């Protein structure tokens, strides 16, 4: 996930710190992204999942959490609505994302590193003295103004908690909180747009007018990346023969086998197998690569099951005539997927097409991406709607499914045949993945943004409520 291999430190020459010292942090439920303002990709990308050892120690970062260890539990600080639940961990994770790759860990001040302490008779050092005043110097981000993104539906309490952490734990000199939809629009140089952000836990819709978020337009639905993973799991289970989902860590070596034939691989033997949560995380990685290389959205017009022409032929029948795509599991088991590779994504647009099992209920018609886009549009002034329809921005890593932009465009145009509908989806997948970060990077390096920061002094004077006034 990280943009630079974890073993390689970013070159010092790449820093734009001389001009702009601001940091941008875009925390998501799937990954946490951070970098310096003015740069076009986040230098630091860390999975939001973290590991917990039985001792209670938390492990962050790709290297730590993907290594099979007995008793390593995988957790995520977000709740199912995409809002931070475990604040303590979230704060640590965010701090790790910034300090591990960008600012460097703070140095222990000489007065505290133990080398300069006068020892008493027992050889113990006196630690209490001077702690108060030292506190100030120890905060990790004292030199860096910080721009953070948040989900549009972040509750007031959580917003205040965020500024508190930034100001008090990290000691930032200035802070700002922006909606991630708003930032994604800025990354495309748009101040007026309807942003559709397909992430891991949620797909959200945000209307932006002249740079200001229209509060009544805000919508979100759980039909997003993780939901799609569940659809694929059900499809795998119902496939003939069922598709065995085997993550990489279980396989020691494999030999090629024919399609649908049992795999011929040596598996790793664990005295105590890794936890279910670990296995789930690793399975999701396989599913993500399946989404990346196999899954495709029926591009429209119409649904997968709507008639393609006279004579009872549906779009699905047409799709069946296309060559199927192969996929190989880490243990060598492989098969091809024809209609199924379209069917798994169809539920995002047509709730009746969703796969269901005893754990996964059929979504309601209100929850499809098209319905939430429509609800958002209905909540804004009539005169604004054609403008927004002409500037629909698609962002988020979950939107990287093949032909998804085309389908979104076709379905919205079918709903509004008259005005001109235009879906803008950056063809560069990095830009699409990091839309909110890139927009934040642009915003924080604009001279005109300078007036917007909440400074440390202002925070001291007004308290955490200042985010409600300043960051609308």
């Amino acid at each position, binding site marked *: 996930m990280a943009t630079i291999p974890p073993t390689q430190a970013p070159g010092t020459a790449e820093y734009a710190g001389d001009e*702009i*010292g601001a940091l941008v942090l875009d925390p998501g439920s799937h990954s946490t992204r951070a970098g310096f303002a003015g740069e076009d990709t986040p230098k630091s990308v860390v999975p939001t999942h973290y590991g917990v050892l039985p001792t209670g120690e938390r492990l962050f970062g790709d290297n730590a959490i993907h290594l099979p260890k007995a008793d390593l539990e995988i957790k995520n600080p977000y709740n199912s609505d995409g809002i931070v639940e475990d604040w303590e961990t979230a704060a640590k994770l965010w701090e790790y994302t910034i300090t591990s790759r960008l600012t460097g860990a703070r140095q222990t001040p000489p007065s505290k590193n133990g080398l300069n302490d006068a020892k008493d008779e027992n050889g113990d050092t006196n630690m209490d003295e001077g702690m108060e005043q030292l506190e100030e110097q120890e905060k990790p981000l004292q030199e860096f103004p910080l721009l953070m993104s948040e989900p549009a539906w972040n509750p007031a309490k959580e917003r205040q908690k965020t500024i508190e952490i930034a100001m008090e734990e990290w000691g930032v000199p*200035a802070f700002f909180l922006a909606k991630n939809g708003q930032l994604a629009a800025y990354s495309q140089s748009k101040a007026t747009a309807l942003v559709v952000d397909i992430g891991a836990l949620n797909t959200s819709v945000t209307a932006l007018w002249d740079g200001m978020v229209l509060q009544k337009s805000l919508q979100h639905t759980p039909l997003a990346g993780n939901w799609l993973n569940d659809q694929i799991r059900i499809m795998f289970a119902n496939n003939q023969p069922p598709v065995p989902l085997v993550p990489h860590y279980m396989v020691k070596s494999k030999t090629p086998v024919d399609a649908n034939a049992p795999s011929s691989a040596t598996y790793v033997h664990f005295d105590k197998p890794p936890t279910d949560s670990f296995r789930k995380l690793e399975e999701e990685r396989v599913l993500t690569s399946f989404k990346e290389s196999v899954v495709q959205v029926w591009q429209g017009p119409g649904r997968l099951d709507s008639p393609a022409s006279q004579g009872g032929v549906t779009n699905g029948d047409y799709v069946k005539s296309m060559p199927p795509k192969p996929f190989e599991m880490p243990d060598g088991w492989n098969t091809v997927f024809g209609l199924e590779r379209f069917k798994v994504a169809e539920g995002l647009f047509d709730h009746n097409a969703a796969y269901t099992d005893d754990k996964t209920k059929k979504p309601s018609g209100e929850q499809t991406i098209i319905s939430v886009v429509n609800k958002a549009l209905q909540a804004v002034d*009539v005169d604004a709607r054609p403008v927004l329809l002409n500037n629909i921005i698609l962002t988020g890593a979950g939107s990287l499914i093949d032909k998804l932009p085309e389908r979104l465009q076709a379905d919205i145009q079918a709903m509004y045949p008259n005005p001109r509908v235009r879906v803008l989806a950056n063809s560069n997948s990095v830009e699409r993945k990091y839309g909110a970060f890139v927009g934040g990077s642009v915003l924080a390096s604009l*001279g005109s943004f300078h*007036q917007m920061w909440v400074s440390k002094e*202002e925070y001291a004077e007004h308290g955490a409520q200042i985010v409600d006034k300043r960051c609308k």
Partner: protein
Amino acid sequence: MAATERRTSAPARSFKRARVSRPPAHWEQTSIGDRPDVPLLKHWQKAAAQTPSFAKYKVEPEVPEFSDEQYEEHLKDPNWTLEETRYLIETYKGCNGKWTVIIDRYEKPERTMEDLKARFYAISAVMLQLETPIQSMTAPQYKMYETLKDFNPKQEMSRKRLAEGHLHRKKDEVDEEAVLLAELQRIMANQESLDSLREDLRKRLDYPKANTNSYQYSTSQALHALWQQLVNADRLRKNQRLRPVGPGQSATSIEGSTSGQTPASARPRESNAGTTQHEPSPASNTKLTEKDKRRFGITEVGPGEKLPSGVSFASDKLSKPRIAKSTVQTEKIAAVLSHIGVPDLIPLPTPPVIEAFESLMGKLHTLLDMRKVAEKEEQELRVREAEAGAQVKEE
């Protein structure tokens, strides 16, 4: 904003041939902007250069200001309280005067955007007039005052209802519009080609030129205005559905045909002189006397004249023009020719014969064109008369 650090650039190395020696520049690091509380931007610049200021970006929209007494005296409205009026003005300010955002943020759901606009404009009008009495307003001020006063919320509401209906027009209605537009396109193209036909004919007849467009769109003026309006509206679309018609964009180019328009320069010059002899190489047809040329029927192509490509026979020049696009036309031509005694087969296609035949054909075509136009005009007259008759009957 004070310099925090100073640096001197490396002393200029003196190269032998360097003529100009610049004094070393001093650079200083400053934090820029007007917010000393936000030490955000650190910036190296030449010493004593001006620090950029971002204060200019802090703009607030102008709002009417009034005291509580002024409110009591001039601005009271049974539907509004002083508090809500002030809240409206604060919201307007907070949203930079963008009504789309104001209605979004306004915390009283029962108010429509038109209510808010009506109230805000009414207050602005009153305050404007209190500040500058109407008699002493400048023209732009008065215009502003009138616009503010004339805001009609009811009309706005019904306009919005229409706009909403327009957004949700059905697919078949949109398709129908596309068909109608195509039809209009065709009508306009036909009008245009008929127009140019007439123009052409009049030129051939050396008709005294009328100084206005000779064809009066007496009843189609509205159509024309509509056309213009549609074309202008269409320009804003990316996939345009209408193409302008008019001189320079005659009917042929609308049908997308460019046949026979290949530039002459793009073709290799052929050596056939357009009559009987086809000379294999250009070198061999030089050195012929005027008399020989006449004898062999050779004509020279002047510079800039265009020749059709390939081989053609002189006899073709006497037979091909007799055949028109339509059989009706061909028959008409044949009838005229036999009437004036031109035989079907002319034995010797010499240049003078061809020339005579061509001039005859030119006249014949003029005649036929005139007849065509006369017929068209007659037809139109009959239609107009029928229309007039129908109108009279209706009344």
